[in-house]
């Protein structure tokens, strides 16, 4: 990890010095060790705060929607999952590609601060990692015990970049990403209803899931737009929790790269990614496997069709 960080700083320094880029989008150290935050560095001097470690879970691609509009080229470090979002945003014309210099960096799973806390660590003094382990404050954890939910199932690979920093250290996913979806599908309707009722009743409509989502880049969201007919600010009724999450999932269906940020940021730990994954799993099953963000040209499954598609009545396998 240390050598990756060193290489990244070297790369940033070189590109800033040569003037090829004027800004660098990366991560900045925090106060408690794990609370790194996305940051833009504009000078070689400012890179002193630059960090890349096992806590850099945030997806940086969405920041480029705004940053790439500004003057000057920006260097961005993209983890495999971030890069799928990046591609999808390029496909949707949301990022000005010519203003971005992308450097792919490898990733073997990022630590979930909540899991760290459950293990009694609230303050990180030192951390190091290998492909399969993380050592925090001298205590070694297996990756599967400690990394973010989204990383446990990650199979994403390094896509095309302007440049890549990799030491060919790849972690294999420890879980099938559809396991929980399948589990839910196997439940009775009553059980599923109870599951989601509990989960969604916790929603406080803080919009963290939406605002962090790289697929949610609307200038103004329908839920904020009084003219849309479905604007709502709070879950004044249990209906609105469902409405918000169904519509949000639907709006990103076929575009969601499964980056998992929604679930990472939810203050109530609602497993929102299970909604998106349901759509992904249905799309894969009904229309053939599709990975949003794998390329920048293909038609998404909801803007496409075949004449032989299944009827809605047959989605559940026969009437």
């Amino acid at each position, binding site marked *: 990890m240390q050598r990756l960080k060193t290489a990244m700083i070297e790369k940033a320094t070189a590109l800033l010095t040569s003037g090829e880029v004027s800004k660098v989008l990366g991560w900045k150290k925090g106060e408690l060790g794990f609370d790194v935050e996305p940051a833009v560095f504009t000078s070689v001097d400012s890179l002193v705060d630059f960090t890349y470690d096992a806590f850099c879970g945030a997806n940086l691609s969405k920041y480029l929607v705004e940053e790439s509009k500004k003057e000057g080229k920006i260097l961005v470090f993209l983890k495999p999952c971030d890069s799928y979002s990046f591609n999808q945003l390029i496909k949707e014309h949301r990022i000005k590609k010519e203003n971005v210099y992308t450097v792919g960096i490898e990733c073997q799973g990022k630590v979930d601060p909540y899991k760290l806390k459950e293990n009694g660590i609230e303050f990180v003094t030192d951390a190091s990692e290998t492909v399969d382990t993380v050592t925090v404050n001298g205590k070694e954890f297996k990756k599967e015990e400690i990394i973010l939910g989204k990383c446990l199932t990650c199979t994403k690979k390094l896509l095309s970049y302007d440049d890549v920093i990799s030491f060919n250290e790849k972690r294999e996913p420890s879980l099938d990403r559809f396991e929980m979806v399948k589990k839910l599908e196997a439940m009775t309707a009553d*059980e599923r209803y109870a599951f989601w009722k509990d989960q969604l009743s916790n929603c406080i409509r803080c919009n963290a899931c939406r605002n962090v989502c790289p697929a949610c880049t609307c200038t103004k969201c329908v839920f904020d737009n009084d003219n849309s007919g*479905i604007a709502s600010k709070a879950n004044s*009724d249990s209906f609105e929790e*469902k409405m918000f999450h169904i519509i949000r999932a639907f709006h990103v269906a076929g575009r969601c790269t499964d980056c998992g940020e929604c679930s990472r940021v939810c203050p109530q730990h609602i497993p929102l990614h299970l909604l998106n994954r349901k759509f992904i799993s249905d799309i894969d099953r009904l229309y053939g496997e599709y990975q949003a963000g794998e390329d920048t040209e293909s038609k998404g499954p*909801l803007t496409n069709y075949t004449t032989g598609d299944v009827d809605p009545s047959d989605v559940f396998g026969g009437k």
Partner: protein
Amino acid sequence: MQEMNNEKKPLIVAFCCNWCSYAGADLAGSSRLSYPADVKIIRVPCSCRVNPMFILKAFQRGADGVIICGCHPGDCHYTTGNYYARRRMSLLFSMLDYLGIERERTRVEWVSAAEGAKFSAVMNDFAGKIAELGENKRLEDLRCKD
């Protein structure tokens, strides 16, 4: 009998595409093929005009069932509209089911302008299923119920 009258009647919203299904409904009418008055039709240009928002809105407002009718695949007046509708609704209905909402509450049917009899049969069947299911509780908005 008395009790029957006191029961809340089911409410069904049917979105019908202008070119096939709405015309099919008209044909059912001109052929005097009855179906329950619980069914209220909203005319849309094409099944692809039906936004999931409309469906959820209908449930929020107290609908007990929502049905979308369009031209048969391949016969869309706009060539491809119902193909998109088919995908959208497949996914949406699957999602509603995933959230534990009764899958019988939503339906898509392809009804051509010539299928007045089918329209009536479909509506009778759907209204019957909805009556069996009873009131929509899982996608209700209590504020709309008092």
